[in-house]
């Protein structure tokens, strides 16, 4: 039994390699199918990785009152554009009135160039944040400290830098705290360094940033029209409750009537989660669609060459049956031939995927999981069985006399 099974597998293998060109051609569908399945899986995997990084950037108990929602359609942009600006004093007012909020802080941003001696770091995202940010921000401080309430109030020239900035300005200094750098030519003292947070899509580092007190930014560079209020939910309070409370307070600050729509946005990490979920679903739909189609085409291709293979080997089948091969032996022989073709196609597809992932990985933290590999192998075997079973059982049922007469 095992002998015969082994023999059937070997015969299947030989059959595939005797007609390599033909087999390779029919593998194309399977290759594309497996490629799209595994690329899809890898992309979803990568999105999850990106998401896990953004978790580090935005605390999951923080609400952001901003002019724009994080996700919007093109058509709505003008409507949002004309909304009244977010004002600095909202921070204090909301934190006073909302029982569900423990800390509130205001933030604005601008792009600046930082320099230390001959080293420059351009396009740095400089945030001016209220002192309360020390209690709201999810970013960890690796060395040094946050600025104090007093430093914020006095608009002190103190700065915290991201790890990317640290690398660029102080390649040889382990702890730059206490050193003076220039922000667009103005002198600031480094008081802290943030821990590394990584890169999103491998391209834009979220570590190419620096933070100074809000009042300093306002005094030195002027007020930006884009303000953002960060609010930390007080422990023991439900986030949805906090959201509703913040919304009604903000509506009050804006003087909105009951039927008027909100003219501000309250953003939170969950929105990002939802949006990523949508992207994942559409990638999955497209990937599965392409995969199903090409696997079907590939499967039909394999079925076709299996019929050809059975025809070509009719005499051989007759001889084997005359010598005592049972039906299942013939069936397994041809089924394996089909499975081997599909499996090789699948493995080529996986190989191509891992090559592509290797390239993409330079920009995108993506990985092929073991589950994905096993799924791809399983799918290939399934396609092989699907496309081999009919030709193989046709071969198994051949009448030995007629088959032997076939030329």
């Amino acid at each position, binding site marked *: *039994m095992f002998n015969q099974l082994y023999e059937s597998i070997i015969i299947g293998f030989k059959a595939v390699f005797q007609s390599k060109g033909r087999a390779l051609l029919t593998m194309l569908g399977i290759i594309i199918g497996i490629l799209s399945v595994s690329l899809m899986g890898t992309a979803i995997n990568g999105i999850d990785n990106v998401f896990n990084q953004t978790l580090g950037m935005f605390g999951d108990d923080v609400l952001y009152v901003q002019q724009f929602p994080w996700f919007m359609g093109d058509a709505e942009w003008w409507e949002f554009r004309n909304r009244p600006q977010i004002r600095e004093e909202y921070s204090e007012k909301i934190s006073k009135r909302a029982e569900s909020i423990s800390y509130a802080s205001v933030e604005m941003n601008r792009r600046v160039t930082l320099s230390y001696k001959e080293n420059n770091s351009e396009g740095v995202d400089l945030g001016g944040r209220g002192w309360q940010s020390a209690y709201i921000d999810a970013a960890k401080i690796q060395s040094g400290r946050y600025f104090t309430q007093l430093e914020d109030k006095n608009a002190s020239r103190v700065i915290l830098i991201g790890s990317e900035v640290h690398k660029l300005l102080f390649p040889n200094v382990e702890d730059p705290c206490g050193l003076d750098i220039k922000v667009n030519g103005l002198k600031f003292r480094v008081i802290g360094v943030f821990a590394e947070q990584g890169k999103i899509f491998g391209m834009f580092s979220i570590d190419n940033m620096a933070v100074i007190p809000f009042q300093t930014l306002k005094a030195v560079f002027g007020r930006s029209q884009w303000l953002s209020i960060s609010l930390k939910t007080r422990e023991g309070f439900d986030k949805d409750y906090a959201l509703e409370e913040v919304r009604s307070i903000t509506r009050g600050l804006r003087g909105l009537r009951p039927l008027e729509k909100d003219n501000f946005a309250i953003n939170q990490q969950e929105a990002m989660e939802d949006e990523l979920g949508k992207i994942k679903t559409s990638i999955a739909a497209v990937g599965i669609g392409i995969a199903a189609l090409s696997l079907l085409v590939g499967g039909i291709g394999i079925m076709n060459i299996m019929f050809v293979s059975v025809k070509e080997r009719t005499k051989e089948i007759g001889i084997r049956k005359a010598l005592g091969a*049972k039906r299942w*032996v013939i069936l397994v022989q041809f089924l394996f031939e089909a499975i081997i073709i599909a499996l090789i196609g699948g493995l080529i597809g996986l190989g191509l995927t891992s090559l592509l992932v290797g390239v993409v990985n330079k920009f995108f933290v993506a990985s092929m999981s073991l589950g994905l590999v096993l799924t791809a192998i399983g799918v290939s075997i399934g396609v092989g069985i699907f496309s081999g079973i009919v030709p193989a059982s046709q071969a198994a049922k051949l009448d030995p006399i007629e088959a032997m007469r076939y030329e």
Partner: protein
Amino acid sequence: MSLLKLKNIYRIYQIGDIEVRALNGVDVDVEKNEYVSIMGPSGSGKSTLMNIIGCLDTPTSGGYELDGMTIHQEIKDGSGIASDDQLAVIRNQKIGFIFQTFNLLPRMTALHNVELPLIYAGVPRLERLERAKAVLESVQLADRMYHRPNELSGGQRQRVAVARALVNDPSIILADEPTGNLDSKTGHDIMNLISNLHERGNTIILVTHEHDIAERASRVINMLDGKIHLDNKKK
């Protein structure tokens, strides 16, 4: 006790409205270690009979017993009719075929061709190789084991086929015009080989068109129109 017993065998082909009676009531008994040759004009049913004896085909009606086993019942009660796979086992274990056109698998070596019946019998690899080599040696092909059929002469190919027929130690060897595709010299060699098998105790049934070949047998059956016309046993 007879090795095979055919009783009132009919094999009828229905082609449209026309009924072809390839076998039209055949009765034969063959004893162990008999050497039977079958003669008769073309289309008289010789190959059809061989196929039924060899369990490659089943009769339309009639009884067939081989080596004490009922292959086909004369009066059917449904119990004694072998299935496709059972017939495969019987062919594998009881029958050795030698065909006019050799019927070797072209892409395999002589050795692998001879191994085939042993593979289907489930014989382990080492024993298989040993037995196949021994049989190939006995037909003087020790130096051609790793050649493929297209690297062998017609006579050598037929010797591979003889080796393949012998390797499973069958109860009967069936040879349908084994010399039909060979020149008379090599045909003579193959016939000597077959006569040797008979002397060593094998049962042989052979179809031929040539009288001098038929005369080697101890019994000559003459067929005509799907029936046994003459059945001469020599003493």
